[in-house]
């Protein structure tokens, strides 16, 4: 074996070792240590994508046993893409956080434990994106959930604690239900490895019930309407770099597992109605989340409801992926592109919302008039992130929504297209509402707040990357199709 073969393992062990180290090193070294770790992970993630592009998908057999006895890591196009997304957003959030959390107050933010928690979360996300084993997914989900909840409660106020507790209970309900599903699936099939499960699918009530329970649990963890109740408060109450990571990456983690289950484990027609149900819930999320975002009076809640809406598109893609009985590659590419562009844009949106909140000392939208004049970079970042939310060219959101609308018309299911177009209009409404306040005449920010000005350009950078993602769609398409068992080869329109 050469060293590159160990990339999947390295992507998990590096943040894990970093987390253990930051727990014991002196606090003033922590930011440097975390920054170095973040850069290393980003390098590894890039190397993994290059390797998958060059040599195709591969499996890493932990302990040398190999499935079904042992646990395998799977590095294919989709997992490499999500690991890379996590790396890019993670690196930016780390850089932003080093100044955000660098306050003089010794007792603030969990006495510096934020860094260990953050690296644990990164470990968990990479492990989740790379695992090929349904029980290991459970352990990863718990790692993600615990570190995310702990990061939400770092603010320490009663609101943050209540939001964290609601998040934790939703997360536990989801994890237990998922595990019950795994129990039934294992009892019916005798296997835990996703590829093995998918290559010899078992008919029968028990296996189907298990899969339905697993998917329902993941839907709860992805915060689809009507089980989205925990998300807006948790994402809004968290410190801003944490909100960015939660909205950009953590909800994508459970969505990623649904994608894997739908594409790799179930066979077409095994769970009639599941695809359409997921699509319908996605459509409901688009409408409900957008309307709620429009009604919010605080910036961070607006951004959080916008996450509920944007996640909806990822689920509308699912019935389209299965529309022809096999797997429609274009729909998978569209979902992946949407996940990436939303991840980048939403991280930028939340980071700039956090900076605005610091500058103004509050996050009430109505009192932010004049922000475009006094904090032009931040106002710009919000507007550019809005371009992706609306789906205007040349953003990644544009291509993703365009492909999904085309596919739904191609397969004769135009109603999905109607919902997506309505969602685009609603997101335009909430973005313009925000921007209109920013450019209105007003005093702007008081100008006296302690603020990490040197990281203000980071949100704009992330949002711009999302807004220009259309130019990288061919690469994303190539990557996503690697290792996927595509039913029908398709060309991009």
């Amino acid at each position, binding site marked *: 074996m050469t060293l590159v073969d160990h990339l999947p393992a390295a992507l998990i062990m590096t943040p894990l070792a970093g987390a253990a180290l930051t727990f014991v090193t002196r606090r003033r070294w922590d930011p440097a240590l975390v920054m170095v770790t973040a850069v290393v992970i980003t390098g590894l993630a890039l190397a993994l994508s290059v390797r998958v592009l060059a040599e195709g998908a591969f499996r890493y057999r932990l302990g040398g046993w190999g499935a079904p006895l042992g646990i395998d890591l799977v590095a294919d196009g989709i997992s490499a893409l999500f690991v890379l997304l996590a790396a890019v957003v993670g690196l930016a959030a780390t850089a932003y956080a080093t100044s955000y959390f660098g306050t003089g107050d010794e007792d603030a933010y969990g006495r510096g434990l934020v860094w260990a928690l953050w690296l644990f979360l990164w470990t968990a996300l990479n492990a989740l994106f790379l695992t090929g084993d349904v029980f290991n997914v459970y352990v990863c989900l718990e790692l993600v959930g615990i570190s995310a909840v702990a990061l939400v409660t770092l603010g320490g106020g009663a609101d943050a604690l209540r939001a964290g507790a609601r998040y934790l*209970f939703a997360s536990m*309900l989801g994890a237990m239900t998922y595990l019950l599903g795994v*129990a039934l699936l294992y009892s019916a099939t005798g296997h835990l490895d996703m590829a093995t499960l998918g290559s010899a699918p078992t008919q029968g009530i028990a296996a189907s019930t298990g899969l339905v329970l697993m998917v329902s649990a993941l839907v709860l963890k992805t915060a689809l309407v009507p089980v989205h109740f925990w998300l807006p408060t948790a994402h809004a109450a968290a410190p801003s770099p944490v909100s960015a990571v939660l909205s950009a990456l953590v909800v994508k983690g459970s969505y990623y597992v649904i994608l894997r289950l739908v594409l790799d484990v179930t066979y077409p027609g095994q769970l009639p109605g599941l695809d359409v149900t997921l699509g319908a819930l996605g459509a409901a999320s688009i409408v409900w989340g957008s309307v709620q975002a429009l009604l919010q009076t605080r910036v961070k809640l607006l951004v959080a409801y916008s996450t509920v809406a944007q996640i909806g598109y990822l689920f509308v893609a699912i019935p389209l992926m299965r529309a022809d009985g096999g797997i429609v590659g274009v729909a998978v590419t569209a979902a992946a592109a949407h996940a990436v562009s939303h991840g980048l844009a939403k991280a930028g949106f939340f980071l700039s919302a956090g900076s605005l909140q610091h500058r103004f000392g509050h996050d009430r939208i109505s009192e932010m008039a004049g922000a475009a004049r006094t904090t032009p970079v931040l106002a710009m970042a919000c507007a550019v992130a809005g371009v992706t939310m609306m789906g205007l060219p040349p953003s990644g959101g544009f291509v993703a929504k365009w492909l999904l609308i085309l596919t739904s018309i191609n397969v004769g299911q135009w109603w999905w297209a109607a919902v997506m177009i309505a969602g685009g209009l609603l997101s335009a409404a909430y973005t313009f509402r925000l921007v209109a306040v920013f450019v209105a005449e007003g005093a702007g920010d008081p100008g006296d707040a302690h603020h990490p000005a040197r990281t203000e350009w980071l949100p704009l950078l992330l949002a711009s990357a999302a807004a220009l993602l259309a130019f990288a769609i061919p690469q994303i398409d190539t990557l996503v199709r690697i290792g996927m068992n595509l039913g029908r080869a398709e060309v991009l329109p």
Partner: protein
Amino acid sequence: MSSHLVYALVGGLLFSIGTYGLIVRPHMIHKIISTNFMGSGVFLVLIGLGNRTPSGVPDPVPQAMVLTGIVVTVALTALSLAIAKRYFSLTGRGDISEHREERVG
């Protein structure tokens, strides 16, 4: 009906009771106890159904999964209790419902 099937079915029942309690009971301590019952229910299903081997020797894989699950569950319980206590110290309340009803342990 064999014994292990009884335990598996009761596992399903415990899971349902736990789910009901988690949603309905307002106090965090009750919610935490509910999740523990859900966990016990899942573990019973896993090991109960793992006893269906032709040889009669229980399948070790579910047992290993349950051991992992027990440790993870105690970790989650510890975290949720820590949050509940901190929240109680700040507010004097043990429930996290939206309406601010006054009820304490």
